[in-house]
């Protein structure tokens, strides 16, 4: 039996693994600060508490490492003749289908850290606010190509609202 989140014929195009690196660094950065703080607090109570907090904290960071990897690997998109499919999510899985003709505009954004890592996010907007189709972790060249292609196809298939 086919799975509900199977790709439509061709395989999903996955996003860059560099997105996982970026997110892991962010996680570890924030997590380490929090962990050091908590450990110092626990150390005021007793050494054993501090050790327990440190061990748990490191375990949580390790778990986060794995989760981020899975979450980034879960993103994927596929360009079909008439529409774009985007899938994501590990625990809560989602698949969005946006017809090109329904696209109102396409955004490409890249924050300072994204740029450092050579990443960009493509966001599609339709007249429905709920559509929410974005693809993070694209190489800038691919993001630009996707944007132009979506825009071109959108123009060809566009209808009024």
């Amino acid at each position, binding site marked *: 039996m086919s799975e*509900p989140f199977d790709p439509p014929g061709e395989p999903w195009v996955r996003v860059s693994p560099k997105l996982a690196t970026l997110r892991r660094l962010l996680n570890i950065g924030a997590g380490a600060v929090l962990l050091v703080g908590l450990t110092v607090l626990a150390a005021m109570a007793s050494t054993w508490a501090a050790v327990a907090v440190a061990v748990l904290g490191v375990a949580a960071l390790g778990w986060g490492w794995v989760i981020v990897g899975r979450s980034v690997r879960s993103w994927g998109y596929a360009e079909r003749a008439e529409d774009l499919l985007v899938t994501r999510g590990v*625990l*809560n899985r*989602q698949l969005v289908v*946006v017809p090109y003709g329904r696209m109102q505009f396409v955004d490409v954004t890249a924050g300072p850290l994204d740029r450092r890592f050579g990443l960009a996010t493509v966001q599609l907007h339709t007249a429905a606010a*709920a559509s929410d189709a974005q693809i993070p972790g694209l190489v800038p060249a691919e993001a630009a190509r996707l944007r132009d292609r979506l825009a071109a196809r*959108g123009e060809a298939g566009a209808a009024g*609202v």
Partner: protein
Amino acid sequence: MSEADQKQRDDRDGFRRLHPLTPFIRGWKIFAAAVAIALQQAYGDIGTGWLLSAIGASIPIGIAYGWLSWRNTHYRVGDDDLRLETGVLRKRSRRVRLDRLQAVDVVRPLVARALGLAELRLEVAGGGSSEAPLAYLSEDAAQRLRAELLARAAGLHHATPEAPEAVLLEVPLGRLVEATLRSVALIGMLVSLVFLIVVTVVTGEWSLLGFAVPFGLAVVPISVGTVVRHFGFTVAESPDGLRIRHGLLETRSQTVPPGRVQAVRVVEPWLWRSQGWCRVEVDVAGYVGEGQAAASVLCPVAPRAEALALLARVLPGVDVDAVPLTGVPASAFWLDPIGWRSLGVGADDRVLVTRTGRFTRVTDVVLHEKLQSVRLRQGLVQRRLGLASVHLDTTPGPVNASAAHRPAAEARAMVDAEVERARVSRSLARPDRWMSPPTGPATPTVTR
């Protein structure tokens, strides 16, 4: 068009002005705001004399401001657009494409009615609430301008006489009042009130009655407001589109051209079931932001059969009850123990229909051709149960159609089938200018 009107039209490159009484209504609003602020401050230690002079001063200030803004507001109706220039200090010039017109509303607030004035609102998709309000015009001018805008938007000559209309539905006052009274909130309030009084009498703690005030404050104005707003609700049909008129104090007459209704929601509250009544709400792309809920009502209360007959006129060829709905598997009980039996979804070649709600039954109708996107979602529990939900996204509005807790494989098949149906329907959709002849399938309309 009268000679005087023509003259007014000709000054300044065909730009017209709003009605000269506009500043007084605008000024009145500032005056009312000043009085409201003054009343709030009256509990403070500010002297009465000071208050009165502040209120007095607000009148000329308001009128002066209103006059300046009137002086600087001009509009012109072109072949395919409306130009609106406003702004005293910051000038703004706006162009509204008439083929993208989603609705034209004529609103008459109480004060404007007394002076024989009306506000004309052009609604287009996107942006905030009412992008091009023309406040105020004389009632005549508003009526004529509305007809002209609709004729131009339809692709007809601008001097086309106003289209005749046929009344489809009228809501009698008695039914409106009874329907409003049959609300869980209102009855809950009355029960709580009685309970409070009993407790008060039994315990002798009279201060408890203070709790009654917020109850009344919350519910009574809403109920009265509903009746006042929907008073004399009439839906009529004309080649221009749907005409909806209602209101006791502030009257509103909306015109929604053909093909502008994106989706429909039929709501049957629990306490209306015995009467077989329902409420009908629509998604229209122009109705967004503040006032959306008020503008999106197609019928505040009507017997279901009447409401469905109305729907068949609004969406020709659509028969909601003829669409067979299929339920969800019993495993959905774990996710929706109360409502799972009520869930259902079905589609024909025009619409997709979803049903939800154990007590208040909600039926959403989405036109394939108006679908914006489709989403398939599956949470952790759903995956364990082999279920998934499908969301059908339409333009912002009351309709929020989703088919929850379908068998996973069926849900995916539904997504694929719906995408295909939407593609086919879009290529057959009628043109934006609804009176111009269709140009065959896959009409290459221009992007917004």
